[in-house]
């Protein structure tokens, strides 16, 4: 739990730092005209919303991983999980999807429509490949219920991969929506934000997966 407390404290610290940076030392009762600060932080609401959401998901996975660590050290009957080899391939696919999303975002920003199309398709295919690979990893572990009941490490593997996969599915829904507009001939300038946010989200999910994978491998 102390790890989680540190992560959450950091997140709160960032929020506090932001607030401090926004002149928490002002003396508002002195009625000097202050310049309006609408949009003063220069970020769109959708991007702020995404960052707040990623903070929530960070807290979620930090708590899951803290629980993993505590169950390992404080519970009884822990058997270490041998992570299936296919998880390495899945990691490569998710990293590829993340790179493809970045390339798509860059192509959309620079108005290169054909390249953007290729990159978006690649990102989608690699992401779906990652999810399929996770299902294959479950099958590589063995009969589900038997092992889930018998080994908390395997139960954690299922829970963590499912929760992570659901977040990726949510991202795929948004990406699909952007791709649909793209295929419908929407102007690239209108898609710029959506694709850019998707890229940020994909990088984030890659980082989360790397943290989960690292804990499963080495803790």
């Amino acid at each position, binding site marked *: *739990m102390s790890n*989680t*407390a540190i992560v*959450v*404290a950091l*997140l*709160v*610290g960032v*929020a*506090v730092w932001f*607030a401090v940076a*926004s*002149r*928490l*030392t*002002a*003396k*508002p*009762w*002195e*009625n*000097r*005209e*202050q310049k*309006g*600060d*609408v*949009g003063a*932080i220069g*970020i*769109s*609401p*959708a991007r*702020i*919303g995404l960052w*707040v*959401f990623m*903070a*929530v998901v960070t*807290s*979620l996975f930090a*708590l*899951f991983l803290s*629980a993993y660590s*505590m*169950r390992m050290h*404080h*519970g*009884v*009957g*822990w058997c270490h999980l041998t992570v299936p080899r296919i998880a390495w391939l899945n990691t490569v696919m998710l990293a590829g999807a993340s790179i493809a999303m970045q390339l798509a975002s860059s192509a959309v920003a620079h108005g290169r429509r054909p390249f953007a199309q290729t990159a978006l398709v690649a990102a989608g295919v690699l992401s779906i490949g990652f999810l399929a690979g996770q299902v294959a990893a479950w099958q590589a572990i063995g009969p589900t*219920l038997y092992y*889930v*009941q018998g080994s*908390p490490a395997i*139960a954690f593997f299922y*829970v963590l991969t499912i*929760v992570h996969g659901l977040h990726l599915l949510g991202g795929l829904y948004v990406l699909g929506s952007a791709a649909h507009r793209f295929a419908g001939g929407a102007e690239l300038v209108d898609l710029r934000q959506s694709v850019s946010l998707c890229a940020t989200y994909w990088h984030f999910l890659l980082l989360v997966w790397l943290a989960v994978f690292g804990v499963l491998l080495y803790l």
Partner: protein
Amino acid sequence: MAYVAIADRDAPIHDPHTFIEKYIWSQDHKVIAIQYAIVAIFVGLVALVLSALMRLQLGFPDQFHFVDPNRYYQFITMHGMIMVIYLLTALFLGGFGNYLIPLMCGARDMVFPYMNMVSFWVYLLAVIVLLASFFVPGGPTGAGWTLYPPQAVLPGTPGAGLGIILMLVSLGIFIVAFTMGGLNYVTTVLQARCRGMTLMRMPLSVWGIFMATILGLLAFPALFVSAIMMTLDGTLGTSFFMPAINSMGGTPEHAGGSPLLFQHLFWFFGHPEVYIVALPAFGIVSDLLSTHARKNIFGYRMMVWAILAIGGLSFVVWAHHMYVSGMNPYFGFFFATTTLIIAVPTAIKVYNWVLTLWKGDIHLNVPMLFAIGFIFTFVHGGLTGLFLGNVTVDLPLSDTYFVVGHFHMVMGVSPILVVFGAIYHWYPKITGRMYSERLGKIHFWLTFLGTYAIYLPMHYLGILGVPRRYYALGDTEFLPQSVHTINAAITIAALVVAGSVLIFLYNMIVSLWKGEKASPNPWKSTTLEWQTPDTPPHHGNWGPRLPVVHRWAYDYSVPGAADDFIPQTVPVDARNATGFGHGEDKAPR
């Protein structure tokens, strides 16, 4: 869509055309706020009835056979969970947060109105799933609101089958709803404030709701994680929390799980939850006191910093709920220290409230009565918190009525007094009508004195050693007969307080039709929500042009000013032209 909230606009936003779009599937933050409030108050009334049934059993044991031991535990569990999560959290953030943030910040709506609407309907689904557990075989869970394993999922505990599963699923759904709402509240505060509304000009109500939302967004995942893992323990037979155990003559197939892990996760959510409820109450009560004392809030900056400090510290005190769990004694020392530290910013707020009242032009109307009542109950609950925050004092008092008295005072009665005060304060803006002041005052005195009659004796019972969570005390040597007499008296007081809610409901409902028409700013308040062109505000709140803010939210009784308040929209250099002149720019400190 997002930028609609901060744009000047001639046409109304969302463009609702039909009754359903306007009042049911509405994206208007005010309608969503009222929807949240109605559902939260309804489910809160259910919890109130449950508490009355519990009190009947405790005050007059075995007289009401309907309340058998199983039902007693089910009532306890549902009462606690509903009051904390589905009433207080939902009402403060979903209700007041939705209504006040855009209006007080000068926005047309939340920045993500569609997601805001979905948030409410998902919340409603969570409530329906929760209440459905009353109608499934075995009934709702009776595990206690903390849902501690292993007993929560073991046979023998009421509702150990479907009841506990529905509770956990409902909590999961609630957290999804809260996250959608929370993203809106945070983003709207950061990005949709009108011109001139700097962070340090925001009313403290918005600050409290803003920080509480951040706490909720970071703390609710802990409950989500524990709900998922306990659901799997209960359904698939995993052993995250469940140790090897013999239960009811059988041996469940669990082994090696850690019940203590659940306690850590639960309280990592549970303690910030106290402040998720308290911070909005702090903010709102600050605004009520300042407005109705006609005085600027004392130490505004310190109040903001205290809110931030309390928010940060609330994540490092959770294990003071677990002193008797057998954890490492050094942990107890650490958490007792942090618990005492968090009392510092909290005490600063209390001092500032009292100093705001000092030499103020106090109007003892209904919202003010509730706000002052809050100071009493909160100080009371805070002081008993000092007892329980210290390990050596907590140990003998743990699991006694002292604890029940403490937490009801600090996070039951206190926030509810603020809820009532806030409803009475903003009712004229929300409905366009005034209410009966006389009925409001009767409601206040019955509630305030009644809750003292309930919870003050509980501290005494706790010191005597009366244990909490017992269905019946029976005849025990260490308990004098007076304990039973006191219990009966507490029950009578509880029934009176519960009955007083009917006066409140009657007043609110009848005033919708028969109440005197409210003026746009009946309290002569400075904040933006009272400066809307229409009362109640229409879709889009502000007409074609957004307001522009020129000053902070607390310009009351400014020396030299014509009136005893200057709205935030009045320019500094236009004070003479508008009649809001004052001799100097700097308000008295």
